[in-house]
């Protein structure tokens, strides 16, 4: 009888934990969305931030976030996918491979502020890229690379051996088998992973603090010449992203509507991340269905 009572108590405690977890997370998300959505308006999204006055928007920050994200992805995806292919297909068990694996692991678990400091030292100061979109994207590359490598490696490893054998037995080279048969087959899972990592990059802040900077020049959204200093496309201008903006207004903001701006920005950020997630899951499902021929 005793063990039954213990059982009942223990199970109740476990359920209580799960309920607590759900309550914490749901109330948190709810708070952000409820508080924030009321401050999101078309005007909020399309006006520039104001340093002192109420009513500033987040147009530049939002643009910067996406721009840094795109540049980061352009840098990370090719390198990461090739690196993942190396680990899944070419790496022979040995010291070098285990060292590369350790490197991937180290890169994945470095605190992002350390990556930011490295970026400041090397990209901002040493290479002289200053606080810029490009420095920020390079720092985020360091931080996102291991994610893409893992996603690619997992994608390749989940493929059946038969496909690879089929290609090789037909006199295709290993590389050609990878390019024409394995990569297309692994594509859906890799794409899903890439979109999920995009959500992470989009919300990253500490690594950008010292690399992309805390300010944005007056952007002229009519000037799309990447060489112009006030062009949104300029790679070598400083760029405060949305998540850095949230931190900055909360720690040093002197505008009267700090709370509204912070809540609104956070809601936009969370909504974007949620969209990335939904999008990734949807794509994974659709392509999966197509491939299984249903």
């Amino acid at each position, binding site marked *: 009888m005793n063990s039954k009572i213990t059982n009942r108590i223990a199970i109740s405690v476990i359920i209580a934990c799960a309920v607590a977890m759900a309550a914490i997370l749901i109330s948190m998300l709810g708070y952000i969305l409820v508080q924030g959505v009321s401050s999101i308006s078309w005007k909020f999204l399309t006006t520039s931030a104001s340093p002192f006055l109420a009513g500033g928007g987040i147009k530049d920050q939002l643009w910067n976030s996406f721009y840094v994200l795109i540049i980061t992805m352009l840098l990370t995806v090719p390198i990461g996918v090739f690196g993942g292919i190396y680990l899944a297909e070419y790496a022979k068990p040995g010291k070098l491979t285990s060292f590369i694996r350790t490197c991937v692991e180290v890169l994945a678990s470095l605190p992002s502020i350390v990556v930011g400091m490295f970026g400041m030292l090397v990209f901002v100061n040493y290479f002289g890229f200053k606080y810029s979109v490009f420095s920020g994207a390079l720092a985020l590359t360091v931080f996102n690379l291991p994610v893409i490598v893992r996603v690619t490696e997992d994608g390749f490893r989940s493929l059946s051996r038969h496909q690879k054998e*089929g290609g090789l037995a037909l006199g295709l080279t290993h590389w050609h088998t990878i390019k024409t048969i394995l990569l297309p087959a692994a594509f859906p899972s890799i794409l899903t992973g890439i979109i999920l990592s995009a959500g992470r990059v989009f919300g990253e802040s500490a690594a950008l603090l010292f690399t992309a900077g805390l300010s944005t020049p007056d952007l002229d959204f009519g000037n799309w010449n990447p060489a112009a200093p006030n062009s949104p496309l300029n790679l070598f201008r400083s760029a405060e992203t949305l998540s850095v903006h949230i931190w900055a207004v909360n720690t040093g903001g002197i505008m009267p509507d700090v709370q509204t701006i912070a809540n609104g920005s956070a809601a936009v950020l969370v909504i974007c991340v949620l969209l990335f997630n939904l999008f990734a899951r949807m794509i994974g499902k659709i392509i999966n269905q197509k491939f299984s021929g249903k």
Partner: protein
Amino acid sequence: MIQMEKNIVSFTNNTVTKELPIQINVENVNIFYGDNHAVKDVNLPIHEKSITALIGPSGCGKSTFIRTINRMNDLIPSARCEGMIGYKDVNILNPKVDVVQLRKEIGMVFQQPNPFPKSISENIQLPLRFAGVRNKKMLKETTEDCLKQVGLWDEVKDRLDRSATSLSGGQQQRLCIARALALKPNVILLDEPTSALDPVSSAKIEELLLELKNSYTIIIVTHNMQQAARIADYTAFFYQGELIEFGKTKTLFTNPEKKSTSDYISGRFG
């Protein structure tokens, strides 16, 4: 080394009436997986334009052996191979051999049908394109030709653009054979090609192989003894990594020299 009977009696489909030239000559081949000695000192002639069946209980080394002939074992890092497999004027096991070229000449079909998740025609044209065939007309003709050879043309000619994975298992396996034929190989290796298929599809594949042997040298691994008896001209019996007996199928089945061969054939183990 291996004694062969001279008098030939027709044994179901085994139509070889004269000694055919040897295409692949296996001498003293040993294969290891790490410390495991998987294939021991095998000597075996493979005759041109005939079907040679490799039989034996599972784990006897027959699959390992067939995968060595086109160097598919290269994929396994721990596998090691010694001896000689003479083909044309080279030893296939020579590390300098261009495995890509080798695999074009010695094609392979696997136990699990493994069409690529692409269209039916793309499955046949992909290896051709890689081999440098650009001419569209020629690609089309070869596709049709290969599909006709495996008797798949009438079944799929209206849906060449459909995904190959939409075909039934037996059709997929025939497509895989057609795909191997597209490169006009000299030898086709089949590793238990019918074990994943239903009896009707299996019978179709067997029929197909009997036709193909007029133009190709065929080596087939099977653990279905009836299948070997039905289609093979020569049969090799493997047991625990050793080649126990090799000879004309009829001889091996009706008058085996070794006791373990007759035990296996009569179903006493395996």
